[in-house]
């Protein structure tokens, strides 16, 4: 189902892979039960003596009829078998997928905000810790521990092709874990209703080979480069004035924490929690009027003048 990025019938990691066959088994049993019952009801109704209304009903004599208890008995026996198998399989699968493995290759802190995802990576050394937004990179082939935090309301962290959902709840430290067996971009989505822009709270998990992951991590840990040309420098001034109370750009005085860290904004594929491509035009449109794209999002419209918007866009383009 390549056309359905959130389909969980396709598994790309062990957690989803343990769950998918159980899902299929229960689905097939369920469909079979529905078909059998429908056929039984159909055949039983086909034996009708009459059709019509009240007079037709009253004209068919009442009788005690055969004892139906064997139906109930055999019905129960036959339904108990798949029920029991499902129960055992459920417990076995639960044991496999529930707790995080004792040895993990990486630990990430993920925080659900209205309406975006923050991912914080412990550094490999002093000054190497960093935060990014809506794009979570993991190395393939190893379990990755994800510690979940709730910043405001309850959200739910879901990457269907890798793992089921776990809620991010304020005041509660939940954990989940991911493991991707193949490199790729896996779409994730908030699945606990969280307000006006719950619909547009997507993210991506990028699974890549260890060396590429390490290169990405080193790059993310770096400070933002100083802008080289005048327009971008003016943009940084406007940014400091208009954006820095919410957004952080490491290596500059901009140190806001309400919104996503933008130090390496242009390294991400999408912006606005998965709603827009990360092009210069889309970024400019988003900066100027996020409320047109995501009504109710926590970022206000900016009402920048033409030159200011131009400069901010040029500045943001330097945050690679």
């Amino acid at each position, binding site marked *: 189902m390549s056309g359905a990025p959130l389909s969980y019938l396709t598994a790309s990691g062990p957690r989803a892979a343990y769950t998918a066959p159980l899902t299929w088994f229960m689905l097939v049993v369920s469909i079979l039960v*529905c078909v059998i*019952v429908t056929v039984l009801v159909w055949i039983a109704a086909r034996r009708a003596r009459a059709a019509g209304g009240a007079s037709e009903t009253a004209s068919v004599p009442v009788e005690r009829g055969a004892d139906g208890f064997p139906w109930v008995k055999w019905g129960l026996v036959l339904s108990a078998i798949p029920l029991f198998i499902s129960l055992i399989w459920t417990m076995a699968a639960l044991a496999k997928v529930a707790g995080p493995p004792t040895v993990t290759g990486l630990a990430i802190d993920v925080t659900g905000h209205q309406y975006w995802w923050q991912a914080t990576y412990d550094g490999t050394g002093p000054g190497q810790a960093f935060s990014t937004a809506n794009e979570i990179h993991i190395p393939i082939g190893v379990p990755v521990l994800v510690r979940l935090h709730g910043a405001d309301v309850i959200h739910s962290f879901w990457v269907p092709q890798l793992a089921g959902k776990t809620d991010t709840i304020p005041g509660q430290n939940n954990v989940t874990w991911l493991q991707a067996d193949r490199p790729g971009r896996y779409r994730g989505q908030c699945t606990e209703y969280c307000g006006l822009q719950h619909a547009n709270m997507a993210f991506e998990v990028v699974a890549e080979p260890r060396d590429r992951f390490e290169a990405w991590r080193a790059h993310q840990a770096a400070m933002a480069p100083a802008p080289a040309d005048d327009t971008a420098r003016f943009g940084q001034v406007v940014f400091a004035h208009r954006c820095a109370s919410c957004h952080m750009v490491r290596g500059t005085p901009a140190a806001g924490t309400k919104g996503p860290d933008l130090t390496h904004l242009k390294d991400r594929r999408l912006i606005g929690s998965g709603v827009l491509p990360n092009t210069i035009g889309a970024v400019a449109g988003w900066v100027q009027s996020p409320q047109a794209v995501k009504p109710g999002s926590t970022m206000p419209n900016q009402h920048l003048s033409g030159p200011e918007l131009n400069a901010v866009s040029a500045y943001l383009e330097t945050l690679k």
Partner: protein
Amino acid sequence: MRAPAYRVPEIGEDTPALRARLQEIWETPPGLKGWLVTTDHKEIGLRYIVTAFLLLIVGGIEALVIRLQLAGPNLHLLTPDQYNQLFTTHGMTMIFLYASPILSGFSNYVWPLMFGSRDMAFPRLNALSYWVYLFAAFFLYAGFVVGAGPNAGWFNYVPLAERPYNPGINEDFYAIGMIFLGISVTVGAANFIVTFFKTRAPGMAINRVPIFAWGTLTASVANLVVIPAVSLAFFLLWMDRQFGTHFFSAAKGGQPLLWQHLFWLFGHPWVYAIVLPAMGMVSDALPVFCRRPLVAHTLVALATVAVMILGFGVWVHHMFATGLPGLALSFFSTASIAITVPSAVTVFAWIATIWLGRPVITTAFLFFASMIVLFVIGGVSGFMTASVPVDWQLTDTYFVVAHLHYVLIGINVFPVVGATYFWFPKFTGKLMGERLGRWNFWTMFAGFNLGFLPMHLTGLLGMPRRVYTYPDGMGWDWLNLITTIGSFVFAVGVLLFVINVWISYRKGAPAGDNPWDAPTLEWATPSPPPPYNFAVIPTIASRHPLWEDRLQESEGRSCLSRGMTLDQGKEALSTTALDADPDRILEMPEDTSAPLLLAIGMTILFIGMLALSWLTIGIGVLACLGALLLWLWPRRDLREREPAPRVAHG
């Protein structure tokens, strides 16, 4: 307290003179005043039914608007705020204001007739429960009408419903309205429970009670146990919002998950409360069209009770993804899978009843028989979500939306429409049109399945719930379009039903007392029944009093034409809980405005809470006290200062 007096009740024949006397005693005066003060269970039952159906239509229109918004990707018919209010209000309407009250309506109307009784145990409480329901419905809708409807989902999770994230008055309407509505459900439930155990006709021992009554009984017990949890939850939320308490706010040491426990502790038993009576309707009415008794009657009654008991232990399956420990999840997972067993008993009993009977295809039969299939579809998808690892994928996707609509429409709406075809002749004395009925059924059935069967796939392809729009390229576009088309076809089916009710009410064929040749006591009364239901209190000797000669189930015969006349006032009979031996003679209350006045007093009180106006709250409290005084003031003519006389045996 004096020992109760004994009285030998007069035994007599069912004569026109007796009927005339009873008519005079029991009749509600015509006109507006009579309309406002009546305590007749049939009148109250019909009001419940009509009000709930109107709300079903309102909730249905909301659903159609939602489906238009979701018909394709990136549509902007509604703003996110409008969408959120709509889906919340749709859920609130269908779950609280339609699904439960409609069943209360049928039970209210049918129970005393089925039981061979003259009214519910507490007629004034019955009137109160309707008025409170009506006013609470207005209250809950008031916010929506002025654009400030509840917007945090019917499940209303905190912190989203808390003031920092929801500063408007929207959630206050919901929180207070739900506490208000809880009063209606609670007094109604208490009334059903006492009615079940104390007012059955002599001889209607506990093993002879129709399954519909078992369904409403178990639902009522559940409601009585769990409504306090949800009323408390909403009260705490209101305190958090208005007085800065921190029951649910994590930053100050509160616990957001507490809300979910309190809510689902109520919410899941409630789901059973809105399906078990409807399943009971099928268990009682389907056999009429199969011309034989229900297979395994006792087992089905026990299964009803078992579902409810297990239903108390499954609420955490709404919370599998909240990070609870695995051991707890295993317990609730097992309970949720185990609940399939009693449900399977009922399903096989129904199928065997058709198979081993002589089915007659009527519109009611079609609704009941198709309900079996819809019940199983809704059941197996519930069985899938009971498995924790699977649920971690399924939960909060459209798979669950499909599941719950199969449960609520399949197991509530279909039986209710079938039950309307079945009991409409009793309510009105007229038969419903069968030809239009067929169109009605097939349109509803086709539209419903067209709309909701593909929705399972939408969920398996990962579409999350409660999104006001969705991007293209996710594989959901054509599925959503089909669902939207199906929902409109379904709506046409419901419209045909309304038209059929209207036409049949105006010029339906006369029904007579027992048009279906059905076995239970309500069919022994005229259609519509007189205000006193039964001129003489019947004595019951089997489960099927009107089929006894043909079934030969028991040696004795029920006696319907001769029995206690109880015509010295507005009198009814109370019997013992298990064996239904005559116990006491009840002096039933006259029509009174006290329930209406109490409901108005409560409305003022709750408006005061909404506006945080202590003056209004004070007026409301005083009005309630005044109404209670009027209600409870003992009246000598009702002998309310004395214990009810016991029935002397011998």
